[in-house]
C-alpha cells in the first residue's frame, strides 16, 4: 500500500513578482533523485527567453528546462512554461502549449496550468503559490484542494510581493503556509525517497 505522501505524482508551482529569488531558494534544495516532476508557471515578459530555466539549471541537482509541446513528464525534472504561452498537462501526462487569451492578464497563467493538472493527476497533485502581485492561481489552488490534493502557500509575510499568496490564503484552506526558507527543505523531506524509507 502507498503511504500518504507516496500518492503524490506532481508538484505545480505558481509564482509572479519576486519569483527568481523565491525559486532560487526552493529548487536547489531538491535532490538529484527527487521522485516527483515539478511544473512552474512564472509570470514574465512575453519576449523573455529561457534565461530563468537555464540559470536555475546550473544551480540545481534536478534538471530544469522549459517545457516543450508534447514532451512527456519525467521525475526529477522541473519544467517552466515558456514566455507568452499557456502550459497545460494532458491526461496522458504530456505537456501542451496554447496561445489562447490571457487569464488574469497573464500568459502563461497559473490557473490554466493548475486546472489542467487536476484533470491529469486528480488527488495526486501538490499545488504551491509563492510571491506575486496578481490574483492568478488562487482559484486553481482551490480546485487542487477540493480534488483531494495538497495546497501549500508561501507565508505572505515572507513574500517580496504578498498579494498573490494573500489571495490564495483567502481562497483556500491550505494544508501548509510556510516561510520561504522552509519550502525547499519541506519538499525535500516530505517527498524524497530517503525520508520515505524513514517513515516506513
Amino acid at each position, binding site marked *: 500500500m502507498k503511504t500518504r505522501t507516496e500518492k503524490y505524482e506532481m508538484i505545480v508551482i505558481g509564482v509572479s513578482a519576486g519569483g527568481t529569488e523565491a525559486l532560487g531558494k526552493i529548487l536547489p534544495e531538491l535532490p538529484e533523485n527527487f521522485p516527483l516532476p515539478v511544473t512552474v508557471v512564472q509570470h514574465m515578459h512575453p519576449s523573455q527567453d529561457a534565461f530563468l530555466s537555464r540559470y536555475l539549471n546550473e544551480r540545481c541537482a534536478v534538471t530544469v528546462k522549459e517545457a516543450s509541446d508534447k514532451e512527456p513528464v519525467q521525475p526529477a525534472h522541473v519544467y517552466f512554461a515558456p514566455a507568452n504561452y499557456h502550459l497545460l*498537462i494532458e491526461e496522458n501526462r504530456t505537456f501542451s502549449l*496554447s496561445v489562447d*487569451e490571457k487569464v488574469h492578464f497573464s500568459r502563461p497563467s497559473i490557473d490554466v496550468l493548475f486546472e489542467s493538472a487536476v484533470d491529469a493527476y*486528480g488527488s495526486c497533485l501538490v499545488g504551491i503559490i509563492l510571491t506575486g502581485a496578481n490574483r492568478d492561481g488562487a482559484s486553481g489552488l482551490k480546485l487542487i484542494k477540493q480534488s483531494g490534493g495538497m495546497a501549500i502557500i508561501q507565508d505572505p509575510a515572507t513574500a517580496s510581493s504578498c498579494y498573490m499568496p494573500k489571495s490564495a490564503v483567502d481562497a483556500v484552506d491550505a494544508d501548509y503556509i510556510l516561510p520561504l526558507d522552509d519550502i525547499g527543505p519541506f519538499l525535500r523531506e516530505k517527498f524524497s525517497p530517503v525520508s520515505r524509507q524513514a517513515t516506513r
Partner: protein
Amino acid sequence: MNEREIETIEINLLLEAIYQRYGYDFRRYARASIKRRILNFLNKSGLPHISDMTRVLLRDEAFFKEILKNFTISVTEMFRDPDFYQAISHEIIPYLKTYPFIKIWHAGCATGEEVYSLAILLKEEGLYDRATIFATDIYDEVLSRAKEGIYSLAQMQKYTVNYQKAGGHRSFSDYYHAQYDSAIIDTSLAKNITFAKHNLVTDSVFGEMHLIMCRNVLIYFNSSLQEQVLHLFYDSLPHGGFLCLGSKETLRFTKVNRHFKEVDGQAKLYQKIS
C-alpha cells in the same frame, strides 16, 4: 465513476456530434485546451452540462456557430517573434530571390496579421510582385476580418516596435492609414493575397508551395494529428521548399523530420531535402 470521468465521455460525444453533424473534426485536438474552451462556453451558455450543449447543437446551427467561434480563438499579432522575421530575411529570402515566381501558404492565418507582416517583408525585399500568397483558416469569420485588414490603432505602437526589431527598413506607418481608432492596412499589400477557407484536418493538399507558414496551430493538435498535418505540408512542398513553424513547435520528434533540414533551430525554419 467521478464527475471528471463523466465529463470526458461528454466531451467525446460532443466532438463526435460536431463531426457527424457539421463535418468539423476536433476529435484529435489537444484535449486540455479544447476542454477549457468547452467549459468556458458552457459557463457562458448557462446550460448545466456538456451533454446539453450536444443536444442543442444537433438541431441549432446558430448555436453551433457560437461554439465554433469559441473553438477557434485566434490570438495573433503583427511581427510576432521579431527574430523569426529576421531569420526569414537572412535564411530564406536569398533562396526565394532566385525564383521567377513564388507561392506562399499561410495555414491557420487567423485574422491576417502574420500574412500582412510577411507581405511587408516581401515588399521591402523587392519580392512582393513575384509572390502569390494563399492565406487559409478553418473559420470564415476570421478570414473576412483578415480580408478587411482593419486592426485596432491601439495595437500599432507595439507592432511598430516589433516591425523595427524584425529589421524593417521603412516607417511602419507607411503600411496603414489611421481612421478614428482603426488602422487600415494599405490595399497594395493585399493585391497578391487570396484568403480561403481550408481545414488542415479534413481537406487535402492546397497546391505546391515554395514556402509554408503554419505557426501556433500545431500546438492545438495531438501528436497523431500533428503527424498527419505535417505530412500534408510535406506533400505540398517541392524539393528545397520551406516550412516555418511557431517558436515552440518543432519537427524534432516527428516522423517527417528526416525529410527536412533544420535551417534555423531557434526560428523553427525547415527545408525539405528528400
